């Protein structure tokens, strides 16, 4: 049943300082809402438990994409459209641009934000596999100051994240060292447009000669949270790719994931398909002469 909107409070301090002060004064009392593409859906179906909300839309300090020589920084308030338009992302971090293009429709991409996609913490979210594979770091702010955290440590469990009640996700930092890397991302969904993934896998790797010198793998809908596939990485890191090492990576991946049955797919299907994708990617990497 639809919620009664008059029971809900929404405030809009308009500045980052104002938002952080409210979160500091009343920790945990206000739920941040940016583009509303998740929160308003919950409201519509009568499942928005939190009655007090604080708007991040229009907070200019959060909506930016800027770069230094070594790092690209994306503000939590940058929309998927902002990400798709950015030339550096298109060139150096194509998996992120691709994931953004998969996230809902154009209208949703104009409103949905990177920060919302991360903090909403859906295990099926589109951008986390790419961010995990790019070894991202998140910057978290509060009235107390700011701190950095490896993104792989941000997700703690199903919809559990490493944010204190007075904290806000401020930005995502990605090192600019992957332009020459082998990069792949694949999503398996019911249809191309707008579908939430059954499973997705991102891989960013480099070879030295035939040996895999660097590799990072991020998965969606393979566990209770967006997941960095460390066992599969370890199975091939420092090794030459061949049928045996690829099989061991498959086995390692199968052992570390725990996909579930739900409305979109079954755990068995997901496990099989994500291992197939990994094998495809690693086979392609094995035969790849460009990225080493």
């Amino acid at each position: 049943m639809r919620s009664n909107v008059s029971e809900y409070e929404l405030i809009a301090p308009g500045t980052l300082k104002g938002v952080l002060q409210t979160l500091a004064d009343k920790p945990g009392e206000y739920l941040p809402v940016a583009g509303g593409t998740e929160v308003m859906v919950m409201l519509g179906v009568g499942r928005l438990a939190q009655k007090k909300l604080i708007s991040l839309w229009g907070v200019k300090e959060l909506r930016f994409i800027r770069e230094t020589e070594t790092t690209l920084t994306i503000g939590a308030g940058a929309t998927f459209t902002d990400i798709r338009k950015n030339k550096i992302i298109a060139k150096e971090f194509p998996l992120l641009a691709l994931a953004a293009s998969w996230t809902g429709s154009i209208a949703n991409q104009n409103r949905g934000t990177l920060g919302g996609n991360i903090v909403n913490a859906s295990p099926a979210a589109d951008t986390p596999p790419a961010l995990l594979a790019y070894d991202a770091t998140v910057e978290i702010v509060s009235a107390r100051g700011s701190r950095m955290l490896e993104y792989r440590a941000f997700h703690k469990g199903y919809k559990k994240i490493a944010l204190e009640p007075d904290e806000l996700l401020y930005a995502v930092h990605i090192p600019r060292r992957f332009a020459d890397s082998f990069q792949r991302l694949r999503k398996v969904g019911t249809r191309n447009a707008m579908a939430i993934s059954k499973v997705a896998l991102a891989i960013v790797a480099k070879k030295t000669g035939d040996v895999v010198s660097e590799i990072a793998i991020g998965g969606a809908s393979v566990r209770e949270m967006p997941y960095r596939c460390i066992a599969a990485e370890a199975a091939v890191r420092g090794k030459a790719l061949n049928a045996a090492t690829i099989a061991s990576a498959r086995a390692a991946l199968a052992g570390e994931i725990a996909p579930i049955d739900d409305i979109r797919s079954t755990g068995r299907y997901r496990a099989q398909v994500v291992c197939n994708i990994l094998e495809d990617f690693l086979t392609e990497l094995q035969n790849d002469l460009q990225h080493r």
Partner: protein
Amino acid sequence: MTQISFVVNGEKKTVDAPPMARLLDVLREHCHLTGTKEGCGEGECGSCSVMMNGELVNSCLVPVLQADGATLCTIEGMAHDGQMHLIQKKFLECGAAQCGICTPGMILAAHHLLEKYPAPTMEQIREGLAGNLCRCTGYQRIFDAVEKCGTGTAGTAKRGDEIDAFECE
């Protein structure tokens, strides 16, 4: 209740509404702009598409407080002085409207697309309208109509007869 002001189709409006009210409901019930339709109410179908500050948005997912100070354009803002917008003309010519529920959203999405790509390819049209569902499944005629609005491949449209929608920045 919160007082919220915005400009819709060139006209300044001030309304008293709960801040979490959906922009869709405020447009329909407070501004009596009932051309914007509700379909799914969860951002999947695009029937409630409007332009907000020059960007296409699903008005069912916009808490109205976030539209405070915004410039909005709805389907009612597309025609001027009794003259249809080019997109509306091409929809008519191509038979792109059947039951009509998706049409306002389709036209706003097409408008947004044509602003970005004046001569969109069929692939760009398909992507640009992917968030707008037509349950009569008249997609091909809709795509044809949008293609005919372009200055490119179809080549049949005369841009000279286009009437601009209200500026949304």
